[in-house]
């Protein structure tokens, strides 16, 4: 006779860097049902946003997430800009794209490293994070912060990248590319990695659509959805190509990230070379009025900010829907029916970021 057991997975678990608890209902080693329990780090950020004025909220938005921080502030600024009818100057758009893409490389390297760690491939984890260190150095040289860049502002960017800096950054990106070329094939072709990821945690296309999957999770299941296609910032000029896989398993999600790293490095290089000279920001006056749903493609998927201004310095409502929030229901679907030993791999294959999910 099979007895049902409930196993709590997290909130503190060696492979889960984020405080989420998965309550797993098990029959022997098989998972019958999974339920998430969050609420360990709810910071009330949406409430604080109503108390600060809308310019200060740029810094607040940046601190929603500790990994993809730049894109949060970029999305917030794009939302406010559309409310105030501002047009960002060309150089501003390019600089935003450069930082966003460099950020994406760092986020994907981090995610791949954690994935390697989740099935015990420590060596690979360290190598990926060593490469990520170069990216952090690039960000520190150009923006002043290793993760919190603080360079985005309403109307453009606050800092410029000089041509001398650009040369250094290009050289460092070469180095990143070189190291990625060495390490990433090891991740993709390794026998043990394939054993742990191929066919594990399959999310079929129709389920992915129904459950609202976004980002690499959706793209690995064959849904070609990448908001960068819609051409915000400088993406239309850079010949952006989205990466789509069809298998829908953990391996496909890894593959999507690996290919996106190459694409991001290519776009960052191109943007650095092509960036036109000119002003980096436009001045603005007045306060935002009206409501908007700002969208952007973040490393983990599509990020939505609902911003409602009422003509005063304070926003009426600022609502954040982060990609992990949308990817949790698909995660529950993937977990059902899998083995307990695969839970860490599946959970980390969606690249969860719980701190920004709870805000």
């Amino acid at each position, binding site marked *: 006779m099979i007895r049902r057991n409930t196993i709590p997975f997290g909130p503190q678990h060696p492979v889960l860097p984020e405080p989420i608890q998965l309550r797993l209902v098990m029959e022997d080693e098989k998972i019958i049902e999974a339920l998430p329990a969050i609420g360990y780090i709810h910071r009330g950020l949406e409430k604080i946003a109503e108390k*600060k004025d809308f*310019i*200060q909220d740029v*810094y*607040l938005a940046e*601190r929603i997430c500790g990994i993809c921080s730049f894109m949060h502030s970029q999305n917030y600024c794009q939302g406010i800009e559309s409310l105030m009818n501002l047009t960002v100057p060309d150089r501003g758009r390019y600089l935003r794209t450069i930082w966003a893409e460099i950020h994406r490389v760092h986020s994907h390297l981090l995610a791949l490293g954690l994935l390697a760690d989740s099935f015990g491939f420590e*060596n*690979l984890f360290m*190598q990926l994070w*060593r490469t990520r*260190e170069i990216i952090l*150095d690039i960000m*520190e*040289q*150009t*923006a*002043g*912060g290793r993760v*919190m860049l*603080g360079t985005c502002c309403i109307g453009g960017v*606050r800092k410029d990248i000089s041509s001398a800096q650009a040369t250094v950054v290009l050289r460092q990106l070469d180095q990143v590319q070189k190291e990625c070329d*060495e*390490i990433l*094939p*090891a991740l993709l*072709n*390794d*026998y*043990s990695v394939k054993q742990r990821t191929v066919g594990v945690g399959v999310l079929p296309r129709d389920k992915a659509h129904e459950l609202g999957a976004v980002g690499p999770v959706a793209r690995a299941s064959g849904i070609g959805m990448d908001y960068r296609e819609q051409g915000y910032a400088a993406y239309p000029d850079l010949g952006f190509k989205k990466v789509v896989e069809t298998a829908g398993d953990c391996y496909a999600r890894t593959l999507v990230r690996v290919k996106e790293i190459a694409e991001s490095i290519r776009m960052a290089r191109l943007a650095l070379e092509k960036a036109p000279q000119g002003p980096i920001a436009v001045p603005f006056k007045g306060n935002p009025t009206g409501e908007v749903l700002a969208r952007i493609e973040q490393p983990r998927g599509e990020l939505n900010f609902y911003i409602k201004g009422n003509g005063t310095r304070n926003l009426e409502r600022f609502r954040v829907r982060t990609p992990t929030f949308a990817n949790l229901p698909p995660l529950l679907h993937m977990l059902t029916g899998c083995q307990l030993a695969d839970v860490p791999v599946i959970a980390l294959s969606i690249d969860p970021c719980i701190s920004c999910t709870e805000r």
Partner: protein
Amino acid sequence: MATMLSNIMKNLGRKAATRLYPFEKRELPTTTRGHLDIEIDKCIFCGACQKRCPTNAINVTRDPKTWAVNHYACIVCGYCVEVCPKDCLLLRNEHLPQP
């Protein structure tokens, strides 16, 4: 494991990726936002920085003339540096030592 082997071989010949930290420190780029500092002689105690700071880290009083920053609250964003009419605030690149 075979694909990893060549990497491991290369790593053996490479110099260490880490530093002997407390003895050997990283050289910070000049752009690093380490901590906020003030040239107090130039300050006119207008309070613009206090009003704009997103974390309410600065406290300015006119009478008596004082200016203080709570380094624990400061997120080193540099917004106050931008709004200061006298350009007396600056971000230094070294981080403050642990007290």
